[in-house]
């Protein structure tokens, strides 16, 4: 019983891995934005990144 559950679990895990590698999943955080206007190419400043208010590290030791 436990063995069968483990095998099922393993198959699911390996299947998920195959899907992740094939579809290119990632652990990194990226925001998806829909319908960015074409005018950005002509006026890059018209697009504001959600990361532009990021608090930058300014230190060192």
């Amino acid at each position, binding site marked *: *019983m*436990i*063995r069968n559950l*483990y*095998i099922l*679990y*393993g198959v699911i*895990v*390996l299947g998920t*891995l*195959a899907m*992740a*590698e*094939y*579809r*290119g*999943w*990632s*652990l*990194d*955080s*990226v*925001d*998806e*934005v*829909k*319908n*960015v*206007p*074409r005018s*950005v*190419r002509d006026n*890059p*400043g018209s*697009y504001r*990144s*959600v*990361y*532009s208010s*990021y608090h*930058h*590290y*300014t*230190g*060192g*030791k």
Partner: protein
Amino acid sequence: MSTSGPNPPGPPQVRSLNCPGCGAAITLRSLSQAVTVVCDHCHSILDAQDPRLTILQKFKAAVDEDPPLIPLGTRGKIRGTDYEAVGFQRRTIHVEGVSYSWHEYVLFNPYKGFRYLTEYNGHWNDTSTLRSLPTVNNDVSPATVSYLGATYKHFQTAKAGTTFVLGEFPWQVRVGESSDVSDYVSPPRVISSERTGKEVTWSMGEYISGRDIWKAFGLQGEPPERIGVYENQPSPLSADTTAIWIAFGGFMLVLFVMMILFWSLARNEQVFQGDYKFNPNAHGETSFVTDVFELGGHTSDLELTTTSNVDNSWIYLNCALINQDTGQAYDFGREVSYYYGHDEDGLWTEGKQDDSVVIPSVPPGHYYFRVEPESDSRGGIISYSISAKRDVPQVSFFGIVLLALLVPAGLITWRSMNFEHLRWAESDYGSTGSDDDDSEDAGRPMSLGNLSGKRDDS
């Protein structure tokens, strides 16, 4: 030994007699098979083979001192055969000043003879005497016995005494009699030897759940809860442990093959490369867009690597990967910072001059980057480059999967080992008094000697 014989079939018969000690009615259910019968009123042990029911022993016990969980006279089906509970006894051992008692039930079928049930702390065994002698090997530790191709490990030996009896017995039962009992286990079975004087009786018990007993005898209510791990209680996991590690090995092989496949089949193709300079002191709009580049193939990842000559400084890039055709953007920010110096501990460094990020599941299409650099305005011009690779295999997933497969296998193995530890902690080879065993301890010696004093009197 009273077992199956050439007796012609017929309905069970019952004979009624009177106790010569108190005159109370006595029912003989196993008829001529009974050697002794106990009066449950005056607690006289009577000679059932004697028509006058001579009193063999009288013992002191309160009325209903130890009522059987299976009332005498109850009938049930064990392994397809009808049996009637005809006898009941309590047996006790003393270990380190503590008494431990268990119960034994005598079951009778006029064609099959006797078999027995034992119960301790909610753990039950279906027991019968052996028809041939097992082979004992005392040259190993723990000692073993072999029977019908199976090997049983010695569990414990103790002197067990009979402390309470009711009903009928196919041997000369006495309260106060004792014998040396040794148990050898191979879950779910246990082989017990019982030595009284020069006579040794061997029996085999098989673990059976209380629920099955209740169902077989049609008993009301619920069986007593099991406490702890019993000497021959089958582990719910041990049978699976080896199979799970075999499965784990198979999974590792598949994982290795998958790794080779994905590494060899991944395009790992560089689709963009750009070198730039950024002056933090310059005024005006800093953002810009790159040339359009094409991402082909199926939906897969895009690994963006940023390198910079930052020197005790930092650069931060607000980036967006924008699909020119659909207007869909992947927005992210990356920082490259590198610091170093010298203090009382010596040289130190922090950060590095490159950084990478993996943008997940990017469909094929025409894309460009919008980049908006930021940095410390006190610094000078910073050079940086951006490169992008399409369809890059992610090694981190293989590590995660390895752990995801290893942890459950390890946990199951640990639980199985813990179960065996609890089992053997109560044996002659276990460490007694260990604090961590208290919660699941079934108690000291449990079912030593399943068949007290059973003799082949025939």
